[in-house]
């Protein structure tokens, strides 16, 4: 009985994914304004930022303020590795490109994997000493890290072309590819979160000492969750570089970190469904709220735009959620087919874990 449901649910999920991807494909090839395609693509990327941050913040309970730095590592990795050597030669104006990178060019997908790996490596580099000092230092250290990364980009022009940034990055990641990768990331992260690994992270989140006393190496779990989170941040960053085609150090200001935090808090600390919904809300809001930053003309009145007003609005939104909607939109609830069907059939049969396990024999 349970097994039949499981097979049915998996089937429905696959069908749903195919439909979504198909729809995105049609969208991409339609004559619709590229602007909307861009928003949808941003959405997919923010899903990755949010989901990667959720593992760390919602599960392990660690607050990192350096997500933007890790995203930046991923972005620059993809940019540098996919840029054509001839383009590098003409666009590195401050210094000629270092021989390390001048003649390198690899295809997008290996570059994207390397983006994840480099970010994970930097994650390891930051998290290990910071977590040795104890959890409270992590926020500070990671905040510093994000700034240091930006300074490195500015001050190593032979590698990163300084504040001019990188242009003409091949735009290999279209809407469909972006969402396919986003779905894959969500899938992997969710699998981790619902395994013994995720369970142990939650235990650490609730009571570190209690977990340690049961034989769990709290330090290892913290570091590994940071590294995994960094990996996915790097993947998201790589996709972003490829979408934008142009990046510079200012692309990676703390706004990106704030976005990740807002998405997780708004969506629900442990709900992937929540993250997907809230990334959509965040992406659309941050586009349409541009209005408040540009001048508005109402009849004969002209209101000047307020630069930075969006940040202010998101700040208030975050405050509001924390004060009045503790669990965000979904808390730790997840969309499930069983739930959807139970809306139609009013007979409530809660599937229990033991039954599932028993049914497998």
């Amino acid at each position, binding site marked *: 009985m349970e097994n039949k449901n499981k097979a049915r649910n998996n089937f429905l999920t696959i069908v749903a994914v195919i439909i979504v991807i198909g729809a995105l494909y049609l969208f991409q090839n339609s004559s619709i304004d590229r602007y909307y395609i861009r928003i949808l693509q941003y959405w997919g990327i923010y899903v990755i930022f949010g989901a990667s941050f959720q593992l760390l913040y919602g599960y392990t309970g660690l607050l990192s303020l350096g997500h933007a730095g890790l995203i930046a590592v991923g972005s620059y990795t993809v940019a540098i590795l996919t840029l054509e050597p001839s383009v590098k030669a003409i666009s590195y104006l401050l210094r000629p490109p270092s021989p390390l990178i001048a003649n390198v060019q690899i295809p997008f997908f290996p570059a994207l994997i390397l983006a994840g790996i480099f970010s994970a490596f930097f994650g390891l580099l930051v998290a290990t000493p910071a977590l040795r000092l104890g959890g409270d230092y992590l926020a500070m250290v990671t905040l510093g890290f994000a700034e240091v990364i930006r300074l490195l980009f500015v001050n190593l022009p032979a590698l990163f072309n300084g504040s001019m940034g990188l242009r003409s990055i091949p735009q290999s990641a279209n809407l469909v590819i972006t969402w396919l990768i986003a779905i894959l990331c969500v899938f992997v992260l969710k699998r981790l979160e619902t395994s013994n690994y995720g369970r142990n992270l939650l235990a650490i989140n609730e009571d570190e000492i209690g977990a340690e006393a*049961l034989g769990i190496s709290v330090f290892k779990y913290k570091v590994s969750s940071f590294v995994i989170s960094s990996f996915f941040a790097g993947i998201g960053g790589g996709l972003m570089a490829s979408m934008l085609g142009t990046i510079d150090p200012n692309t990676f200001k703390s706004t990106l970190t704030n976005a990740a935090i807002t998405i997780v808090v708004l969506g629900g600390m442990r709900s992937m469904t929540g993250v997907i919904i809230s990334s959509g809300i965040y992406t659309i809001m941050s586009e349409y709220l541009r209005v408040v930053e540009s001048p508005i003309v109402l009849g004969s009145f002209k209101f000047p735009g307020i630069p930075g007003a969006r940040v202010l609005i998101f700040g208030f939104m975050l405050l509001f959620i924390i004060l009045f909607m503790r669990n965000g939109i979904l808390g730790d609830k997840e969309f499930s087919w069983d739930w959807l069907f139970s809306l139609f059939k009013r007979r409530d049969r809660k599937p229990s874990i033991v039954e599932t396990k028993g049914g497998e024999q």
Partner: protein
Amino acid sequence: MSLLDAKDLTMRFGGLVSVANFNAAIEPGEIVGLIGPNGAGKSTVFNMVCGFYKPTQGRVFFDGKDITGMKPNNIVEMGLTRVFQNGRLFKKMNVIENMLVGRQRHFKASLLDSILRTPTYQQNEKLAYEKSINLLEKLDLINYIHEEAGKLPFGIQRKLEVARAMSTKPKMLLLDEPATGLNVEESNDMIHFITQLRDEFNITILLIEHSMRVVMSICPRIIVIDHGETIAEGNPDEIRENQKVFEAYLGVDDNVEN
């Protein structure tokens, strides 16, 4: 050979000597009581044995190996698990999840296994469930299996915490005041529970307990400390008649050792 052998354990915090020259050799299968007035240093002994504090002096041997200075989680790996005085359940998790976290050290599947849900992962997860359910059944906690730990009656929470420690499959348990805060009925239940652990699992226990009634009814051997010093050791009758113990508990003379 003793299972646990504490040699000259001393813990100093600045000028304060919490525990001085604590010695104990506990044989496999024994249940030993550790008692003493408030602030005597009992929990500090546990903290030194389990790696939460590094003793200022002395050594701890477990199962023939020197475990002094080892990290708490590695000490659990060796088969020594403690239960805290002020409960440390994962209150927002349900009962079975608490048990499953306790079983982690027997979980042999990599992260890749868990992402791909390989047969290895599934076998491990299935085994973990079966063993946990089995333990909950034996310990009469199975009815609470899906309840949120923090919402259970206090007496059940204390039991669950001991059960969770058992799911690490220890050779020895250190229990820090498992019956504190329980009413008479609950604490009788706890006495039965601990005796059951000894009888069914043949486990070695070092038990800190305030309630004389509980200690006297479970432990054939009792160690008494006061102000960090070991003042007596013996069977319940000897302890009952010991003048120093009597004075320590009445607080007649604080400097009885001198």
